[in-house]
């Protein structure tokens, strides 16, 4: 186990004093020691990335700094002075502002209010709406965000909402700005825009804490890295002095060769099967579509085949998946399963046909926070059996135990509440729930979003082995590498219609990007796939 005296790289000799210094921070939750003697510091004008797998304690550390959680032990110093925040308002008043992973804004209020709430300009004892809108418009302009500050926030896309959240944080005149996964819902241009803003804030001397699962982004923007693992401090490094491979190793803690092995195994084995003849068609969709969601689209999925859906955010990936999974009704077209036509009105009917949709929205449409790991795992199976035939407790325990072991779910015990698990483990619980009903077609919508490298590799491996055992998988991910690695065939969507259906042989990310970007005319596509 690493002691806190581990790597402390690059203490600037004559440099500025740290603006934030957290020492020996410990926080416990029922059954979990979330942080154990962790140290963390931030310097003015520096971007400091907090790295670690899910469950490493990043979120907990951030919440300790922002006053959401109290600390059990240890101290926090802000500009040399010892502080203790009891709520986020105090931290904010002290100059620490935060943009959380989920957009924590108020959709029912205007954009201007969301930027300014809590420090509205006042006139004659009341809020001065005109000044507020003007001020908000200035800030948004500084972010090159051209939206009406008087419009309701929830009339805008998630990416815009994220930028509004950042606009809010910037306006607080923060000394410390915490960005927790700010880029997960942004596209490439928006990320570039965000980084431009971050750099200008750096010049103003703001200390920025940056959390992201995208290593490229971390290396592009950050000056310093701190790695946590299982609630413990692993080390602090200067970005330029740390090789990526060493970083990943520090984060995962196991020998990197193991990870590479997983990677290559999936990859090479994948290559083998892609040589096989076309598999028997399990599901065929003919011109299925839904007004306002996706144009009529053809889609076939063979037994034991992994079909990847690629496309940008909003290209209709999720919409198509929801039609196939019976979540939304189709307006047009016909689904055929094993040769017989099928009309799906509810997910329940889909499940009866062993077609399962696992939502991208893990928290709201996936796990049930307040139930135990065991209850979450047996949920779909029980619902499928009908509530008048309860699954015997013994059988439930067996099921839970077997999936916890098979999927390597990190939980203290099967009775732990799912909300206390990390994102990656919650995702595994969700997978276990669907696997328990032995699906024929598993639709995975962004199963690896927001989870760490290790869990990601495990899930990829799992998908691969499921397909090998004859299960069909429709796999959606924003990460093209992942789609390429897992899929036998890739369907590319753009602007809510299908633009290509490519067999995955020797496809490269660049090829795929080109198709997504250009919507490639057919002949070009052929040559692209053939080369």
């Amino acid at each position, binding site marked *: 186990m690493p002691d806190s005296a581990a790597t402390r790289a690059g203490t600037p000799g004559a440099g500025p004093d740290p603006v934030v210094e957290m020492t020996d921070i410990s926080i416990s939750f029922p059954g979990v020691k979330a942080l154990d003697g962790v140290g963390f510091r931030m310097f003015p004008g520096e971007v400091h990335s907090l790295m670690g797998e899910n469950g490493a304690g990043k979120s907990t550390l951030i919440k300790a700094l922002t006053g959401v959680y109290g600390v059990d032990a240890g101290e926090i110093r802000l500009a040399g002075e010892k502080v203790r925040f009891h709520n986020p308002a105090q931290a*904010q*008043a002290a100059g620490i502002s935060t943009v959380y992973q989920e957009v924590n*804004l*108020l959709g*029912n209020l205007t954009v201007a*209010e969301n930027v300014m709430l809590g420090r509205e300009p006042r006139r004659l004892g009341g*809020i001065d709406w005109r000044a507020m809108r003007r001020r908000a418009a200035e800030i948004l302009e500084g972010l090159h965000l051209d939206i009406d500050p008087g419009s309701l926030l929830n009339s805008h896309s998630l990416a815009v909402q994220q930028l509004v959240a950042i606009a809010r944080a910037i306006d607080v005149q923060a000394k410390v700005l915490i960005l927790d996964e700010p880029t997960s819902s942004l596209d490439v241009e928006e990320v570039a825009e965000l980084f431009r803003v971050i750099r200008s804030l750096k010049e103003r001397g703001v200390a920025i804490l940056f959390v992201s699962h995208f290593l490229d982004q971390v290396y592009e923007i950050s000056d310093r890295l701190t790695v946590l693992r299982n609630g413990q401090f692993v080390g602090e490094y200067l970005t330029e002095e740390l090789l990526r491979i060493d970083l990943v190793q520090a984060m995962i803690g196991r020998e990197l060769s193991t990870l590479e092995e997983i990677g290559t195994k999936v990859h090479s084995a994948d290559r083998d099967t892609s040589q096989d003849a076309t598999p028997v068609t399990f599901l065929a969709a003919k011109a299925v579509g839904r007004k306002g969601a996706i144009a009529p689209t053809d889609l076939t999925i063979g037994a034991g085949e992994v079909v990847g859906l690629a496309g940008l955010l909003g290209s209709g990936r999720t919409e198509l998946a929801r039609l196939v999974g019976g979540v939304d009704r189709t307006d047009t077209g016909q689904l055929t399963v094993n040769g017989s036509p099928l009309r799906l009105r509810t997910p329940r009917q889909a499940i009866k046909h062993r077609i399962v949709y696992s939502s991208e929205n893990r928290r709201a449409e996936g796990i049930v926070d307040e139930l135990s790991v065991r209850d979450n795992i047996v949920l779909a199976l029980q619902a499928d059996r009908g509530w008048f035939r309860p699954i015997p407790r013994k059988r439930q325990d067996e099921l839970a135990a077997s999936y916890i072991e098979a999927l390597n779910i990190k939980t203290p015990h099967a009775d732990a509440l799912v909300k206390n698990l990390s994102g990656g483990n919650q995702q595994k619980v969700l997978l276990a729930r669907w696997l328990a009903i032995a699906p024929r077609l598993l639709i995975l919508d962004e199963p690896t979003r927001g989870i760490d490298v290790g869990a990601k590799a495990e899930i990829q491996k799992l998908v691969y082995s499921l397909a090998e055992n004859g299960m069909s998988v429709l796999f959606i991910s924003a990460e093209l590498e992942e789609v390429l690695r897992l899929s036998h065939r890739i369907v590319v969507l753009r602007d809510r219609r299908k633009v290509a259906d490519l067999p995955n042989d020797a496809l490269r990310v660049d090829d795929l990007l080109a198709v997504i970007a250009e919507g490639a005319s057919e002949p070009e596509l052929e040559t692209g796939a053939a080369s």
Partner: protein
Amino acid sequence: MSAVSVPTSGVGRLWSRTVDVFTSPKSGPVLVTAVLFVVMFLAGGARYRGFLSATTILNLMVSYSYLIVLAVGMSFVIISGGIDLSVGSVLALSTIIAARLLQFGWNPIVVILLILVITSVLGLLVGLMVHVFEIQPFIATLAAMFLARGMCYIIAKESISITDPFFSWMAKTRIILGYRMSITPSVVIALVVLAIAVWVLQYTRFGRTTYAIGGGEQSGMLMGLPTSRTKVLVYVISGFCSGLAGVLYAFYTLSGYALTGVGTELDAIAAVVIGGTLLTGGYGFVLGSALGVLVLGLIQTMITFEGTLSSWWTKIFIGALLLVFIILQKVLTSRRA
């Protein structure tokens, strides 16, 4: 969703803007209510002699000034995502406290102040139950409802009439606005309360925090807003308004009775919902709630004018209207989600 292509002509732009305003979950329902009110008023005027006049509206305000005050308090609670079932009982409680204490010969001003303190404290207790013990507002206010109703019977089982000169003066005084147009002081009080409420909700941090809680309490808390204080205060306001409404009701009826105001909480909720406030919180205008009261009153008046219909038809119309509005809200919010 529907990306409206910006029309170039002025008329087209005005039209798309109008469509936008009417389909926004924020302003849509209240505008529909306003249109409905005007249409009902004109239809009534076409059908009944003497209906289409300011007198009709002023009479409504005289009869329903207490309900306007109740609806104001209820708006705060519902916008914050809660509900207050106790307002009818608290109204009854304050009429009966007033009647009994005046019977003892207390000074009417002292009585009124005492009532407002008692009902505010009751609201405070409800707010603390909701906030500190995290009891659902439905349950906490249900408890308060039974408590207040029970206390009414402890004070007096029978109806007590009020003979106090100040109360009588308030009941009889008419402020003349023009030919056959007059209002009572109660209407002035209700309108002042309404004006203050509009200002508080729109122009104070407390008011905006109330909306924030309705929109997402967790988010509001993370944004550093004083959500706990606001949540408790919302119930204090509702308690205060119920007390004041009770006083206005006592002015109006010159009596106190344990059985008054049974079901009035539902009238207040109906008025708030018809006035465009979302039952799940986060959207709504207090002016809309006042408009909702007038719509309810107008239905009642029209049925009276009709003459042949039983007064139960009022309930049926209100029920149907509520249903329409709740569906409308559902459609508007899901479209924007």
